[in-house]
């Protein structure tokens, strides 16, 4: 009897945590949507672009920027649904469809456009290297995930997808870190930019590797 009640409370706790994560994630996706909506309709002198006037007149930057702003947001909800076990088991077609949306968004649009705008990133060379590396790794991890599932290598597919999604999440973590660092330390605007350009995704990737290590510990052994 005692065991049962313990099991139920553990079950409840897990459910509560899951719902909480879902809500927090939905909240951040909503914030990201707000950021994207600033650029609808297309206008080259609003929000972030107000301080990118040197570049926005260049056609390739303009296209890359708007492609990135409009498409990258799709990777957030599309990627999140991939990790639900019940969707994978009961509705594999949803997993496949949203999976195609996720990988095609990144490989065809979000990562290449991210690379181009990364060349002109704020914060100087260090920030630019961070964003270029992020774009390359994001593309690479996502591509590896696609290639491994085509070979029916599910374990490799899962591992590459965890890495890919960790970088997808940098859209949120980069901005969250910026918010926290500014609130705590009030650094100069471009100084904070250089910090979050790295912090925003490197920490995610380290956490992803730790996660992979613990999940597949047995397999590795």
């Amino acid at each position, binding site marked *: 009897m005692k065991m049962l009640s313990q099991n139920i409370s553990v079950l409840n706790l897990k459910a509560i945590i899951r719902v909480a994560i879902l809500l927090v994630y939905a909240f951040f996706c909503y914030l990201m949507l707000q950021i994207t909506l600033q650029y609808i309709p297309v206008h080259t002198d609003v929000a*972030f672009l107000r*301080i990118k006037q040197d570049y926005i007149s260049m056609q390739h930057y303009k296209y890359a920027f708007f492609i990135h702003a409009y498409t990258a947001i799709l990777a957030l909800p599309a990627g999140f649904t991939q990790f639900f076990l019940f969707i994978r088991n009961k509705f594999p077609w949803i997993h496949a469809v949203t999976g195609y949306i996720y990988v095609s968004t990144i490989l065809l649009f979000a990562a290449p456009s991210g690379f181009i705008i990364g060349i002109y990133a704020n914060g100087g060379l260090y920030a630019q290297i961070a964003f270029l590396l992020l774009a390359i790794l994001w593309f690479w991890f996502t591509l590896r995930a696609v290639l491994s599932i085509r070979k029916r290598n599910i374990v490799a597919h899962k591992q590459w997808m965890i890495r890919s999604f960790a970088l997808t999440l940098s859209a949120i973590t980069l*901005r969250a870190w910026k*918010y926290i660092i500014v609130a705590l330390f009030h650094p*100069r*605007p471009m100084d904070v930019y250089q910090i979050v350009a790295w912090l925003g995704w490197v920490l995610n990737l380290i956490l992803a590797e730790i996660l992979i290590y613990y999940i597949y510990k047995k397999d590795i052994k």
Partner: protein
Amino acid sequence: MKNLSLIYFVLFATILSCSQPKKQNNHEKETTEGFVTDTPAKADIKADNIQSAVYGYYVGMFKASIFDRDKKPSYANKITVSIDSLKDKIVYGHSIVAGNWRPFQGEWSTLDNVLLVNAKEPGDDRYDGVFEFSIYPESQIISGIWKANDKNLAVTQREYSLEKREFTYNPKLELPDYIAWQDLYDQNNEIVDGAEFLTEDVLKVNASIQPLKKEDVENLYKGDLEVIRNSIYARHGYSFKNRKMRYVFDSAVDWYMPVSIDVRGQITDLERQNIELIKRYEEHATAYYDAFGR
């Protein structure tokens, strides 16, 4: 021979007086000045003569002496009082303080080489009042009080001691070193949250002489940007309505004197471009610096 030269002189003076009546007046003053006596008529003439010495701008702090603390008064603002004309016992002038340009008109008299002035502002502005001051032509100082017409204002009386100073636009004027690390005050005289202070960055650029690039401004705090941009207006003698900027320039910048409430026509092309650039980064910082985003 002496008599002859005197005759020549009178003749010359007469000719002068016919062609240029005004100059003849001056001439007479100069002549009489040598024989200063205590007769009232002479004193008047003397006062007439010092008009040109009295005309001009007088600058200093306009300090609250009677005020209501609860109404969040502006305790001290820099004021420029301009004496524009002294004629027939009537004085015309104007004052510029806190973004307010107001004419005044009144009476003046002399007492022991001091000009006593009592002048009213038109009375159709909420902040109009009456000036009572003395002009000391020798030390080039004006000092006195000002009383508000509306006794419900936060400040109903102010005092001042102003020094005569000419205004010239000089783009090379720099902010003083001690302005760095000063707190910025908001519209209610209170220190805005921790982010609102100046740093040494505010001294790095002069937006009136150097064309700024985005690299010069992108890593600056909003407060520094705001002061750098407003220094342009300050050099042109713009009187700030905005309390935050008024406190910075009124109290911390000696060379600053408010002489105008619209300097748009005086801003140079270089300054205009710099203002536009800085404004972009200021607005971006306002909207996004502490927000979730970039």
